[in-house]
């Protein structure tokens, strides 16, 4: 177990290093004359890497503020959105995944799940906004100017209304990824011979489910935590744009449009790092759950 975690941590470190180098390459594009020749680009790349080592991450070409400052202003919103979306994803995705994981329910409901998950995030966001507007009579939720802060722990009705739709959109995207991972693992464990043999040896179905199947399925889900976080980040980008919140993902889109490579590189690095770390954490916990070793 320890060896496994160590190996995965090594992979994570290598991944972060690689992502850092790629981010430096992107940031090097922001330097003047970097596009003129290969040697100039490589020189700029080297300079960027050295700058990173000295904790100098460059400046935004648009606003002039330093990269960490910009990130600090925009990142917490996205992180909060992703975190709350993760909660929604697990609350919705896990039960749905279990219900549809095996047996006749799976076959009957699969087309329906396919239909719902065929909606891209922006379509889902607009659909939810429409439902809120028409069905619940909420104030116009989209396109009403830039909102600076999303209050993620809302205290009053307006704040709840403002926060619910984005969180729900992101959460449902994550739920889709979560239930898919669960169903994949469930169908894998359904075919194992020990499920039949242990029952023949005298264990009840409940014994087998409780002691062996459910931990295996949960472990499978945890191992896919990276995928879920990836879906959440992707949905966050669209959600912030649709509901006009100035989060990091929205900042990324804008900085690419305005060719502000330093900021774009930094945001991509943060997102990649987040996904890889989530994957590492998920896989390590999954290992502990599914491979208890001598623990019964």
């Amino acid at each position, binding site marked *: 177990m320890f060896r496994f975690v160590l190996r995965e941590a090594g992979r994570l470190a290598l991944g972060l290093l690689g992502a850092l180098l790629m981010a430096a390459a992107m940031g090097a594009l922001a330097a003047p004359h970097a596009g003129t020749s290969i040697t100039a680009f490589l020189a700029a790349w080297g300079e960027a890497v050295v700058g990173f080592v000295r904790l100098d991450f460059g400046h935004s070409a648009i606003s002039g503020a330093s990269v960490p400052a910009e990130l600090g202003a925009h990142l917490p919103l996205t992180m909060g959105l992703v975190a709350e979306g993760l909660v929604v994803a697990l609350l919705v995705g896990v039960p749905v995944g279990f219900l549809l994981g095996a047996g006749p329910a799976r076959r009957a409901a699969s087309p329906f799940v396919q239909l719902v998950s065929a*909606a891209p995030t922006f*379509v889902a966001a*607009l659909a939810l906004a429409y439902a809120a507007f028409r069905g619940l009579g909420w104030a116009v939720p989209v*396109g009403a100017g830039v909102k600076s802060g999303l209050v993620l722990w809302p205290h009053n009705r307006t704040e709840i209304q403002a926060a619910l739709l984005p969180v729900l959109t992101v959460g449902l995207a994550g739920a889709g990824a979560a239930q898919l991972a669960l169903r994949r693992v469930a169908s894998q464990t359904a075919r194992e011979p020990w499920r039949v043999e242990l029952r023949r040896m005298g264990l009840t179905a409940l014994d087998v489910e409780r002691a062996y199947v459910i931990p295996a399925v949960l472990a499978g889900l945890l191992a896919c935590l990276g995928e879920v976080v990836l879906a959440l980040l992707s949905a966050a980008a669209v959600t912030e744009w649709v509901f006009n919140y100035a989060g990091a993902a929205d900042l990324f889109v804008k900085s690419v449009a305005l060719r502000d490579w330093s900021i*774009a590189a930094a945001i991509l690095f943060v*997102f990649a790092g987040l996904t890889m770390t989530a994957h590492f954490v998920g896989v390590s916990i999954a290992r502990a759950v599914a491979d208890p070793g001598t623990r019964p």
Partner: protein
Amino acid sequence: MTMTATAPRPAASLETVLRTAGWVGLGLIAVAVSLSDFLTSVPADATNIGPLLAAPSESFRFGTDVLGRDMLSETLHGLGVTVRAALPATLIALATGALAGFVAARLPRPLALALRGIIGILSAVPALLLAILIIGLTSRGWASIAAGLAAAPFAFVRAFEQAETQERARHSEYARAAGISAMTLLRRDLVYEFTDTVLSSAARALAAVTIILSTVSFLGFAAEPPHRDLGLMIAASKGAFLQAWWTAAFPAVALMLLILFARLAAGLNEGERA
């Protein structure tokens, strides 16, 4: 014999039905797209055909939008643009994704691991953002290629790991012991895994690429009028759709149908990240 994992599963018939439904749906869309010039009454992006923001009626089945364009024609044209952009992207995703993954797994070990590492980092970034980045680095005309490249890392990693599992299996050990070369083992992978599943891999890639393309154009990074695709149409309706639902609903449904049929054609258990 206590275990027979080889008997055909009864659910196979439902899977086949859905898969056929998916391909039939894609076929219908292809037909509609190629006949769009006949089915629509007006050319693309023809404004002021009818009253502005008119609800669906006898004369305008899908209503009109804020500039008076006929939604039915616009939706069909938009579907055509989306499909035509998605096809090259699908091919690129297949070639640089699944195919490249299989080949990379059979390369000499250090090279294979290095490739896997680099592509693995790329797959840790949401495909959408990757596509936006590529478009930003090049130009809007590259949207199709960008979507294909962005959808590739995920497929690459999956194909790579599939090939690696085969590599570690006992039959590979025996094959190597009997002098079978790595080239022959790669050929086995390509013949049995890739061509067996190339149609469903293509359908899966189509779904992924369509989602990326439509989102990218929704965010304003791709096609421009008069070649508006479905994503751009939905973006354009952002202002008015709360009052005039038809300006967003019909393009959205067309888009969802395309993605849904592509997913069904790829197989029951699939579902890509948005």
